[in-house]
């Protein structure tokens, strides 16, 4: 029986919030979606079985990203060992386990998950505008592409930006309600 670590609800909330971004992160090492999902699932199972406890959002991410990276690297290494007689092994021989890559990928995933969360919460038209804007289309180009006025583009961009800022405020509050004074319902 578990006597330490997160409650099932806390664990579930953590899983639901972090699973997809961690898969994206694992994918930057493995370049294989299924393998990435397997690695992240295994890490979460270990967290549960070992009764690991996180006192904050940052602590959780620090542990999880590190654990996923380690497991991904292990997976790559064992793949290489098994396939050294095949040509594809040459690509995998240079496994990048540097700190630089680690921090780069973490920043990349964390940034993109915020963008994705913000865009997916926007109505279709606004999302389409932001999507083109992120691809560095100018307002004129967006207006032409979507067949709308430049003023509409500007207004929608303002709305989208406001939404992003709102989301960033709440982003930290994902988790571990008993540490804060109020309780947040995580569903």
């Amino acid at each position, binding site marked *: 029986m578990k006597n330490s670590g997160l409650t099932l609800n806390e664990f579930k909330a953590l*899983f639901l919030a972090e699973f997809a971004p961690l*898969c994206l992160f694992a*994918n930057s090492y493995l370049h294989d979606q299924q393998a990435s999902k397997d690695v992240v699932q295994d890490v979460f*199972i270990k967290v*549960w*079985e070992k009764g690991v406890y996180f006192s904050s959002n*940052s602590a959780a991410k620090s542990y999880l990203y590190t654990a996923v990276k380690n497991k991904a690297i292990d997976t790559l290494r064992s793949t290489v060992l098994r396939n050294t007689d095949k040509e594809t092994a040459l690509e995998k021989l240079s496994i990048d386990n540097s700190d630089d890559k680690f921090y780069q990928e973490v920043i990349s995933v964390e*940034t993109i998950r*915020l*963008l994705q969360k913000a865009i997916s919460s926007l109505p279709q038209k606004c999302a389409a505008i932001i999507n083109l804007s992120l691809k560095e289309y100018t307002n004129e180009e967006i207006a032409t592409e979507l067949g709308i006025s430049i003023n509409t583009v500007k207004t929608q961009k303002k709305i989208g930006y406001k939404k992003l800022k709102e989301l960033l405020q709440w982003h930290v509050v994902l988790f571990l309600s008993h540490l804060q004074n109020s309780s947040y319902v995580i569903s």
Partner: protein
Amino acid sequence: MKPTWGNLLEYSKKLALAIWKNKKLPDHTQVPLTPEKIQQTVQKIREQQESDRIFLEGINAEEEWNTLYIKIKKPADFRKYISFAAIVMVLIGVTTLYVYKIKRNTPVQITEQITSGSTKATLILEDGSKVALTNATYTNANANTNKEGLIYNKKDGSSEVAYNSLMVPRGGQFFVELADGTKVWLNSASLLKYPVKFTPGKSREVKLVYGEAYFEVSNSTAHHGDKFQVLTQNQTVEVLGTEFNIRAYPEEETMYTTLKKGSIAISNDFDHKLMKPGEQAVLQNDAFTVTPVDVDYATAWKNGYFMFKNTSLKNMMTELSRWYDMTVVFKNAEKAAYHFSGELKRGDDIQKLLKQIAQTNEVQFEIKGKTIMIH
């Protein structure tokens, strides 16, 4: 210099804002990367953000949770006790497969003909014409299919609105997203009728003619305050941004409405109740009885499982026969009253499920074509 994670996360937030607005990059002195590496990272983010977003959206965290949950739960205890009434309660473990023991000499005919259910439905348009929806793509003026199901264009309607119906046969299940963003999962043997567009100022009404559906209703505040109503044969459910399951199979003569999230008011000509999450309203003889239940049992089908809690074999087999589109015959009438608890996966072959049940040595199955006989 080892960064604090607070710094990394803060930096990512600032970066998201800067990339969104296409503005100057934030100061990065708190982050342990050289300016060149930072530049490289930002470049990569710009190039990859769209495909990465698609990657993220392609992952269904709820489904993955279900997979994980099965792995971390303690394996089921196999407790068996027999009373005079011959009620047997067994926990079925989904991860183990036991060798099937044959008590009698009757051979079990393994057949290719019973298959587990799949995504399929018939779309019935306003003019009565029918379209078979499977995995192939379909588009019309108001909707199109994708890998999830049928998605309606998010447009408001005017006063005259056309109605469509989705008929899901036995052995099928389907997902539809209505024009207001409400999501509906339809179980086997179900028929849902709904308008192609919703008119602002009017309440949003759909009809579950029969069957079972799980609704995730788009909040009324996003729709000019227009409330959402689900009508069935005998009741009306009014909702305000919520998730719930309605089970209205005519042969059961009972309707079950289970609320997962939000709040709903349920009513008919004789009775009306207000429900809270975790409650189930049972309609029998025109009256509603509301009790707390474990919502997971009522909504497991939507997540790919059968979940049974002290369920009679008769009811279990009725449930299975809808999804597998087969007939069930009890050669030994006593066994219909045997009770079971546990979970089975809807994606599994019927033989596998039957083996799990037969493992108790209390029940034997014989399969002939699409009929299952229970001894």
